[in-house]
Structure formats: C-alpha cells, structure tokens
C-alpha cells in the first residue's frame, strides 16, 4: 500500500488547496494518508468512517500533492482507490451521486438530457454563423481525419458557447477535415472514474472508441483535459491520437497574426492538463506565437476538478476565491484551456478566454 510510504513530513500542506481553504489538517494529503496509516485504530468507529469517506471527496484531485511528494507516494492512485472503496462500502452516503450515475447510465451525459440533444443547443446557436456546421456532425458512414470530442460541459452549457464558436471557426479557417461526434458522443467516463467506478466508465468508453474507429479518425481532439485523460489514457485507441486542442493547433499553426488587443493577460494552467497529462509547452507556445504577453499564475488548482463542485460546492468556491484574491487577477483576462476551469472563473465574475478564442480572433474568425 503506497500510502505507507508517506513519512508524514507535511510538505504537501504548503501546496494543497483544500488545506489552504480550510486550514485544518484533515483536509490535507498528509492528514488523509495518516488516517489510512492508523485505520486499524479507528475503523470500528462508524462516525469516523463516515467522516473519512466524505473527506475523500473533499478534494479536487489536482495532483499537486503527488507531484510534490518526495516520498514517492502515488497519491492520486490512492485517492482513486479509496474513493472506490468508500462508495462500495457505504453507497447510502453517496446517494447524492446517484442522479449523476443514472444520467450517465441512461442518457450518457452528466446533465440527464436526451442523448440527441448533444448536438442541438450549440448547433441552433452557431449554424447560421458557420455554414455547413450541421454536415460536420458525425453520422454512421461518415469519415474524417479529425474527430472533435466536445465533452458534456461544452455540449450542453451556454457558458461554453464562445469557446465552441471559436473552435469551429478556427477549424473552418484552417481547412481542417473534421467531424463532431454529436449525439454519438458518450460522456468520456471521467466523472465515474473520479468516483472510482471503473466499470461504469468503461461502458461509456467502449461506445466512444467504436465511433472514433468507425470514423477512421487519425486524431480525436478535445478542449477538455478531463476528457483527454480518459481518451488518451483509458480508451485504448490504437490508430487514433488523442490531442488537446492546444496541441492540435500548435502543430498546425506556425505563425498566426499577432493578437491586436491591448489587454492584461494571466494564464491559469489547468491542473489536469499540465500536471496529469503533462501538456505544458503547447498552450504557452500557441499564446506566444500570437505575441501575447501574459503573467503566469501559480500552478494551483481552481477548485473545479475531482467532482468537488458536486461534492462540496462551498469548498470549491472558497478555493477559487482564495486563488483569485492571491493572484490579483480581477482586472486581467485569465487565459485558460479547460471548460471546468472556465466555469470556476466565470463563477467569480472573472473575465476569461480559452486559448482558442484568442486564436480565432487573430485568424479573423471569431468576431
């Protein structure tokens, strides 16, 4: 058990956003690893067990603890396994997750909306602006070099529409051969993975894999780092490379026109993108190619991951509020490249742009 390797040095306290927001040790990685180390002493206490299981879901799974841990404890794996155990041991304590599970089982998206609606909202909004967009939606028998995997947030949330608009306009402007999975897209499985339900996630992945393969796509491209974790690490795609949109565009665009707006920019690097997927250079390369100067924000979490928005929204809010206050970004535009981070930033009334919005603007495709 790798949590045994934790020497309880406490170095993780300095970086953990949950500890920072709460100030109490039980929220820290050391605190949780310690609880596992002394579990034999406390496992008979039902109330403690319940509290511990709740604590496991009071974490944004940003992975900074694992990155900083000199003792080599693979903490993300530990949290993943423990979450699975927690749900298995006391499903009644996680009833609030059941609607999400049901939605994913029945309609394959996190919102419980009809499957065919995946390509309704944004298509209604954008088809006049982007002629031929409807033809880009995948149907059986269609093929393309690139398959766009939007994910649940971008498929259904109006707050993501500007990113979608920019994404499609940029693809069109660059004459990219692409299809959007549309109603044939299942959730990537990341929410189930985050609650330790690997079997449930696998069912969703199998369908996605068959669609991507039938479209003979060389690349599957997504704006969502969570989806990319699933597509790249868990879908077992053999002939298709899973890419973040910043990777795809950075390869494709050598010298875009310079960004012409005088704005102060900060860059919030999504945890799942840089820390878990280790995609660090392409987003920055793309921003720099557009001649945009930006301030690097601390590589700390926005509080939007790990299902935290669902399991403890107040804690999630506190994490982003503390981050925004520390970074002093109220009067800047926060560049990011993740729909969950975008939601967190918008929730604090911060001005934010996805990298593809900037790219679309420089290419003359957005406004």
């Amino acid at each position, binding site marked *: 058990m790798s949590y045994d390797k934790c020497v309880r040095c*406490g170095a993780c*306290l*300095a970086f953990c956003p949950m500890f920072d927001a709460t*100030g109490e040790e039980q929220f820290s990685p*050391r605190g949780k690893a310690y609880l596992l180390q*002394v579990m034999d002493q406390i496992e008979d206490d039902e109330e403690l067990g319940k*509290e511990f299981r709740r604590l496991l879901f009071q974490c944004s799974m940003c992975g900074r603890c694992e990155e900083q*841990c*000199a*003792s080599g404890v693979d903490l993300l794996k530990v949290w993943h396994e423990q979450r699975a155990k927690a749900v298995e041991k006391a499903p009644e304590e996680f009833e609030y997750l059941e609607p999400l599970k049901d939605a994913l089982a029945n309609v394959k998206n996190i919102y419980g909306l009809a499957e065919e609606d995946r390509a309704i909202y944004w298509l209604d909004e954008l088809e006049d602006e982007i002629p031929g967009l409807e033809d880009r939606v995948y149907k059986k028998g269609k093929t393309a070099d690139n398959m766009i995997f939007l994910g649940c947030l971008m498929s259904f949330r109006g707050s993501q529409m500007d990113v979608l608009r920019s994404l499609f306009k940029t693809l069109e402007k660059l004459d990219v051969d692409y299809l959007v999975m549309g109603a044939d897209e299942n959730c990537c499985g990341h929410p189930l993975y985050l609650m330790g339900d690997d079997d449930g996630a696998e069912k969703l992945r199998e369908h996605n894999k068959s669609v991507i393969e039938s479209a003979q796509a060389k690349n599957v491209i997504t704006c969502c780092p969570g989806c990319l974790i699933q597509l790249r690490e868990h879908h077992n795609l053999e002939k298709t490379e899973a890419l973040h949109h910043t990777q795809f565009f950075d390869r494709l665009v050598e010298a875009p026109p310079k960004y012409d707006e005088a704005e102060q920019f900060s860059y919030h690097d999504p945890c799942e993108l840089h820390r878990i997927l280790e995609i660090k250079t392409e987003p920055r390369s793309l921003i720099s190619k557009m001649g945009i100067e930006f301030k690097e924000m601390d590589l700390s979490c926005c509080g939007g991951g790990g299902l935290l928005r669902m399991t403890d929204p107040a804690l999630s809010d506190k994490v982003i509020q503390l981050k925004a206050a520390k970074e002093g970004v109220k009067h800047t535009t926060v560049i990011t490249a993740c729909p969950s981070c975008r939601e967190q930033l918008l929730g604090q009334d911060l001005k934010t742009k996805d990298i593809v919005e900037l790219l679309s603007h420089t290419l003359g495709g957005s406004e």
Partner: protein
Amino acid sequence: MRIRDVVIGANASMYYKLNFRKIKGVYYPRNTIEVIAAIRHAQSNGFTVTPKGGGSGLSGACTGGDDERVMISSLQMKDVLTVSKDQGYMDVEGGIVIDRINEFLDPMGMRFYVAPSSRDTATAAGVLSTDGGGNDTWVNGTMRDNTIRAQVVLYDGRLITVDWEGVKSNDKALEAQLNDIGVTLHDVASSHGTLGFITEMRLKIRPKFTEKLVGGLAEFSECNALGKALTDMIDRQSPIRYGEAITIAHDDVREGFDPPLLILEFPEDYVDEIKDITDYKPLDAAELARMKNIRIKLPKRNPNVGVQFALFEGYGFHGDSLLKLQDNLDEIEALLNSHGMAPFGKYGHGPSKWYLGDNTPTYGLILHSREIRPEGKSGEELLNVVLEIVDKCEELGVTPKPEHKWPFSDVTKKKRLEEIRQVIGDGFNPFLLSPECNDVLGSMV
C-alpha cells in the same frame, strides 16, 4: 471523537499511533485571544495542553503522549506582523513556516538565516521549541541565536515575553519570580512545548549575503577522514555557508554518488584554505544545486522496496568522537544491525553547532539517521533500540539527538524545565517529563 481529533496526530516521527480517545479538543486559533480561550478550556476541564506546529519534528513531543489533552495547532497563526529592515528584525506569529518568512523577505533583499531541512513545513515556534538549525548553522547559529524574543501563553492564560535579558509580564509578581531564577530565551529554546504556547516571535533578519560563493564536493575513502576535515574547518573557523555530509545512502537514492562525501559552499576568498583542508572537486551552480537537492530529499525518499523511518533522529559528533567518526559509526551500525535494522541514510550538517542542556555551544557534525522499517518489531522493541543507542552515544561521547534531543538524555535541561514549571504550572506537555515517558512513546511506535 471527530476525525480532526485523529488527524492532529499526524507527525513525522515514528511516534504516531496515538490513543486518540485521550484527545479532548483540537484548536486552530487565529490569534492570541483564541489561544488563551483554548488553554482556558483545557485548564477548566483538567486537561493538559500540547502545542503543535508543522509536525515535522522527530521527537514525538507534538503528540502530547497519553494524557487527556487539548491539542493546539499554530498553523493558522502564520502572519508577518512587522518588519524593521533598518533594525534587523521582524515580528511574526509562531505558526509561520520558515520558507514563507524568506519568501516574504526576499523582495526586500533580507533573509532569515535558519535553514532546517524541513523549512518547507517547520514553523518558527516549532523550530525554537527544538532549537533546530540547518546547513548554515555553523555560521548563522541555531534558532535561539536568531530569536530576539518570544511571547508565550502559559497554562493559566497569563502572557510572558521572554528575551535574552529575562522575562516581562503584566503580572509583576510572576515576572519577578521568573527573573529570580534567570529565565531567558535559552529556556524556551528546546523546551518542546513544555512551558507554554508561543504566539509571537521577534526574529533577527539580515541583508542577503552578496559575497561570491563557490561550491565543492569532497569525497572520502572513510569517515575518519571526513571527521578530520570537519574538525579542521571548526578549528580554523572556516566560513562554510553550506556544509552537508552524507556518510551512507541507500543505492536506490544515492544517484551514482559514493559516500562518504561533503557538499560545501563557501566564499571564493577561502578556496585556498578549504583546499588546504580537503581535496574537494569544484562544483558549478547546477551541480551544486543537484547535490543540495539529493541531500534535502533524503529524509523524505524511500527505497524501491520498503519504507524508511527515523528510528533515531540524529547524532552529534564533536571533539574526539568526530575525529573517530568512522569507528563510532561502525559501532552504531553494528548495534543497529544486531536489531535487524538496515541502514537507509545518514546525512547532516557539518560543520555545525548545537547547544547542550546547560546551554554550552558545541561544534561538530549533526548526522541524521534513517533506517528501513523492519517488519514484525513491536513499538516497545523499537524504543528499546533507541534507548540502547542513547547509551551507546554516551559511551562514545556523542550527543544523542543534538537538535531534537528530548526526551532521551538531557538531565540538565529536564531539571531546568521542572524548576521553571514549579513557577508557571505544569499543564503543558507533562508526559515529556514524566518517568513513564519512554513507555508512552514506546506505545505509539
């Protein structure tokens, strides 16, 4: 019992299996008033009080032993209060982490020169409570040398301020009593939370050194030669700004180096002097940074198979025991081997400085020790090994646990603390002074 009552036991020592039901309250106060309120709660219910900082110490003092107790964490008292660059001090709350102090001072061109290996976690009050030091203690002194005063809340809620002259308090009778017995910062240093809760501290700060430093790596065929080189540096008072020795490192973490070795950084003007003492290989900035990184991570890394642990936090080699470093280490290693302990690493500060219980400064090598945790040993067996090592240290003229020496060996310090506690009360961390201390610690391994 709540989970916060359990988690407060998390600490880096091998004493971590607490009797959680004896913890009667956990507080994370944000100011002195809240500290006093927490202590009053303990006092009115007959509970003892245990202060806790970052929990990076290895003595087990922050566990509070087995008493029915209230635990007070300083982690939310982490503010810088004032800074006087001209007068060379800063006032901080006791829970501020050492690295945060220097992050704050850095833009001002100032620095707080105490650098324990755990400076990313250790709090200012915690480091004073152990009188910790680090890789530059030789030139910059231990925590007590860098502390001007400390504000302490006592078990009855009264406040005292202790500096190098004595004690000040609004309670003049108490002030007089403590000054009569000569209480100074020497007593707060290394008191391991037995006197009170440190809420605020005034620390010495200095401009960052601007002298040009050079790095070097001295490799030795055996440790007596290393001990001789360190002795020469001490005799010549060589201005070593960074001195870290590694005498043993497990294959999985040594990254190709072959201890014993000494990593050095010193002013360029002293190249000839250091060359005269030891035949070191110059290191460029990147190589030096790499060596420092290898060293600082040793207390946290693990072998590929098994888990490291701190059975005995460290050894203070000085005088003859430093000159016979290899012979003494052989004896200690033989003792460890006889109990089935496989070495993981021995590394530490040299040349360095520590204080004995009578406040005599001592100079030598502080060598931390990590072993691979053996399977199937009871807590009692492991603690007995610790006690055997203490005896061995005394036989060899080695200071046991020179920084975190409590509670093993320092009869002088114990007596002094008991004398002070007769005046201020004995509600803070009494287990450390009790005859049952070893049994209690053994039960927590």
